[in-house]
């Protein structure tokens, strides 16, 4: 069994072994990354069950197609793309089968509150939920994973210009939601 090593050298060995068909090596690679992949998928899909499916699908595809990956140093970028693609697939299924969606547990989304910081978080959660899959993908990859614009373009496999405009519009949608929420809170305070 491969130890769960960290660092690029160990990764390179693991990737080379996994490419040659070593399932244990691939499991070690996956185990290092699965928490972050799962978190990313959960934020993108807003649904933990779907996120599990997406992560598993992305990793199985990675295992299956790994021998075709020529640049091993791009493993993580490639895996990110596979996850994004799997999340898109899941999102499409979710749209077709709305009735089966299990939303994030309520406690993860903050206690509903019409005013103050909690109300703002609640509104932000709702705004994130309202974003299109494209916009949520770029928000999660930028704000949660901290990817730069070129990295975003690479992860989402879109031109740099598209990444810029997509992030701009997603950010504006979120900001508009918060502005509306703050305005509503102020007017409710005025009435009170």
């Amino acid at each position, binding site marked *: 069994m491969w130890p769960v090593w960290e660092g690029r050298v160990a990764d390179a060995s693991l990737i080379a072994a996994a490419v040659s068909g070593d399932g244990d090596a691939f499991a070690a690679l996956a185990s290092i990354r699965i928490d972050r992949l*799962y978190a*990313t998928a959960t934020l993108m899909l807003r649904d933990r069950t779907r996120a599990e499916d997406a992560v*598993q699908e992305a990793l199985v595809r990675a295992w299956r197609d790994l021998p075709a990956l020529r640049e091993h140093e791009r493993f993580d970028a490639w895996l990110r793309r596979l996850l994004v693609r799997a999340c898109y697939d899941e999102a499409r299924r979710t749209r077709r089968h709305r009735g089966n969606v299990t939303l994030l547990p309520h406690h993860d989304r903050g206690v509903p509150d019409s005013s103050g910081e909690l109300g703002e978080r609640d509104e932000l959660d709702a705004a*994130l939920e309202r974003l299109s899959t494209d916009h949520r993908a770029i*928000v999660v990859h930028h704000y949660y994973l901290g990817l730069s614009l070129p990295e975003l373009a690479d992860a989402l*496999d879109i031109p740099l210009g598209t990444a810029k405009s997509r992030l701009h519009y997603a950010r504006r949608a*979120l900001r508009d939601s918060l502005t509306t929420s703050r305005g509503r809170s102020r007017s409710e305070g005025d009435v009170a």
Partner: protein
Amino acid sequence: MSTRDGFDDLVAARLRDTAPQEAPAHLMDSLINRVSSTPQRRRGALGWLNSPVARLAVAAAVLAAAVVAGIQFGGLFDRPIGAEESSPSPSASIQPSPSASIQPSSPEASASAATTPQPSAEASATPGAGDPSELLLRLETICDVSPPQSIPRISLMADGTVVWHSNASELPIQTRQLTADGLAEMTDDLFTGGLFDESATYEPVQRPGTPEPPGHGACFHTYTADDGAVVVGSTSWFGEPEESTYYEPAPERKALDELASALLDPESLVADAAWAGPASTYEGTEYQLLLHAVRDSDVPSTGSPDASEVPWPFDSPLDEFGEPGFDETYRCGNISRDEAMAIVDALIKPDAEHPVLTAPYYFSLQWAEGNGSVEVNLVPLMPDGYPGCAGPL
């Protein structure tokens, strides 16, 4: 984009707060199970289950795969598989064969099967004299929700030619010739149980009163007999022993599953004397070339070479080659062995071992012209020309 400010920090903090810290443990366990049962796609190697080729070739299997996707991604369908109309086809009048269909030879039983393909009447130690392109029995097996296997697990032809491909091994496709006596023995074994007298479909039927089964994959066995006139399908739980906890036991499914396992090693089904010669590697004279050319896609890059580097044996654009597939991105046509070899020559690295094209061949290319990817799939055609580009195309 404007510069980062308090709003950006707020969004980043909220995402950090709501993101789960750890993946559930069962996710890793489940992944390991799936990886252990999923072969890798290798250029020029056999570990190439999951090719889209068979999606073109096995329409019924594709439909079944869609059903199983519903099982795997629990809740996709309103009703679990196996309820009501997923019962065995009412048109089927199959004799249950709990002991599987590999049975001792029985000339009487063989003679009684009206649709049983008949071997040469003059049984002898010489090769069979039937039509080499006439199919007696073909088995295709597809497991899990991924696209199906590209080539049959076994093809038995009327002249006694057997072509088989072990699902689990890295061995090339094998072929061996039965004598006329051997062919008679094998057809008796295969057809005496009556499993292939009529077309039928056997799917899992949920036991009354049991909870909805957890998500799981499935295996589909599709048997084609009598030169395509009879198609018998069977679906079973993939990789889990507790199928009977949730689904009714069905002697037909059990028999078909056991037969599928037995057919992995056809040489063990009959005595050595039943064979006219040793096994050899099967080489097709023609190959099915299936291109999956996707424009403007989000297909991840693998750093593969550009499609323009390949000497395609046709002048048309990639996405106009041959016949259309089951959607506008698939194109399918047959090419000669020499043309197939020329494609492979252009794709392999100079120092790589040259594949001999005795197995499904897969390669992924970048498509700069179409800003996307091109999957190249080459499959040697079986003696009956299967898989062709007809059917669901």
